[in-house]
């Protein structure tokens, strides 16, 4: 979860590490990573990993950058890469295989993503499952950066690109992308039921206190089901400012954090991206970038789909349930001691309240 970059992007850094000094731990991890990669690099010798360093990369996986060097055919090769390793606990329980498949599927398409290279689901090599992908350096992701003088003029262009790319994700054919399989298909008229049941279960299992607003929203959603999805799409499921990399020209260079991706109603993504809780600039702009109506218009043009207002409202309210599910499960991880990342406590307090207010606003009940 990187949208609340100031705190969320701190990601999983306060976990207990035992008595092993940090430098020794990193050195050991570098050695083991090099040992893992060496047999996966045909013709390579003198494989080295160095510079392993934790970076901002979301609270669902531990993200580190590192430099891979090796010799091949008499030449020295250097690659800057990213290690995404499962933590013991996180904001959301996710499937790394799905995330890896999504990166692979969209690489080289109009949806920019980094190249995903190796997936390891066994905990043996590095204690936890992980995958490795290319590092795209020199780019920005935080919403705070967007609000600096240098980037303020770029927001309309970034907003246009943001919702155009989301429209392209919605337009894409999951079958042709090879994602039906890694992601479970669902009937067009059952997308909403599957997602709502999932997040209601998360709340049932993880809430630390009663959630009367979210429970009322769930009942409303069941009484007012949306129309069937217009098509079955890949749903990124966490597409928002903070989860893409952008440059100083206002271009989006990579969409990240596909760990919750699934097949479903494309309106789910649109609704999540325009949820009021991402209005960090407090200007009423969707994702702190563009007016909501403009974002929807761009998405419709790019996707070839229609965001019918009643259907979109259903998914916007659903987003509030999903958001609350994420915040309360993070709060439980923090409270239980499974994960000491302070972002989990902070998001449970702060985003939980904002999420309730967003639900009330959507229902016309905000004081």
């Amino acid at each position, binding site marked *: 979860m990187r949208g*609340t970059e100031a*705190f969320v992007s701190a990601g999983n850094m306060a976990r207990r590490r035992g008595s092993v000094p940090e430098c020794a731990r990193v050195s050991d991890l570098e050695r083991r990573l090099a040992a893992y990669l060496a047999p996966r690099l045909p013709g390579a010798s003198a494989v080295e990993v160095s510079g392993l360093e934790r970076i901002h990369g979301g609270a669902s996986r531990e993200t580190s950058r590192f430099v891979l060097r090796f010799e091949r055919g008499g030449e020295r090769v250097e690659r800057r890469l990213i290690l995404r390793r499962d933590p013991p606990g996180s904001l959301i329980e996710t499937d790394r295989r799905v995330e890896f498949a999504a990166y692979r599927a969209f690489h080289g398409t109009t949806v920019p993503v980094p190249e995903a290279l190796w997936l390891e689901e066994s905990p043996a090599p590095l204690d936890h499952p992980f995958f490795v992908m290319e590092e795209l350096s020199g780019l920005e992701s935080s919403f705070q950066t967007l609000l600096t003088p240098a980037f303020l003029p770029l927001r309309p262009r970034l907003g246009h690109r943001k919702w155009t790319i989301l429209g392209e994700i919605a337009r894409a054919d999951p079958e042709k992308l090879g994602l039906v399989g890694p992601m479970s298909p669902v009937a067009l008229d059952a997308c909403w039921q599957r997602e709502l049941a999932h997040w209601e279960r998360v709340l049932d299992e993880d809430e630390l*206190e*009663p959630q*009367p607003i979210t429970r009322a929203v769930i009942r409303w959603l069941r009484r007012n089901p949306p129309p069937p999805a217009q098509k079955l799409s890949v749903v990124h499921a966490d597409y928002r400012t903070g989860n893409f990399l952008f440059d100083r020209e206002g271009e989006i260079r990579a969409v990240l954090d596909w760990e919750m991706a699934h097949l479903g109603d494309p309106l789910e993504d649109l609704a999540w991206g325009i949820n009021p809780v991402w209005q960090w600039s407090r200007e009423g702009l969707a994702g702190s970038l563009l007016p909501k109506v403009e974002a929807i218009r761009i998405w419709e043009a790019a996707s070839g789909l229609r965001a019918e207002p009643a259907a979109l409202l259903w998914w916007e309210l659903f987003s509030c349930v999903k958001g609350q599910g994420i915040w309360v499960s993070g709060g439980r991880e923090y409270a239980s001691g499974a994960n000491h990342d*302070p972002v989990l406590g*902070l998001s449970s*307090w702060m985003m939980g309240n904002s999420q309730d207010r967003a639900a009330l606003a959507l229902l016309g009940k905000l*004081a």
Partner: protein
Amino acid sequence: MKPDPSLVLERTVQALLGEIAPAMTPPYRAASVSVQAMLLGVAREEIDRAAARRVEENAALRKLFAEGAPVVRDAGLRERLGSAAVSADPSLRVPDLDATNQALRALLIGLHAHVETLPGPEARALEGAIWRELAASTERRRIAIAPF
């Protein structure tokens, strides 16, 4: 307790954000310290109002239950509402107030779900009162640095 705990926390937050975090490396550790500081800042905000907002909300919920009980058709729920309406906070300690608040909020969910199924203007009026209390509850918990 002087200096006020809230003042101490405020100064601590300032030091963490303004002096300690900027001097830390690597960047993700600096970010972690900043998050810890923000967490303390929110805790400071909550400490100031912790007892007051719980007392206020528990009283508001009891009043709502007292007014709503006659509308309720389910005998068991009506009895639980009646009991809750005349209950009292066991103490002004925050954990005690919190436990009571959670029990009352759980009962509110049951009342809300029940009232939604009832026809008639009285039920609609009660439903409106519940939504007003829910809106008020988010304001009581509102956090200054929150995005919305």
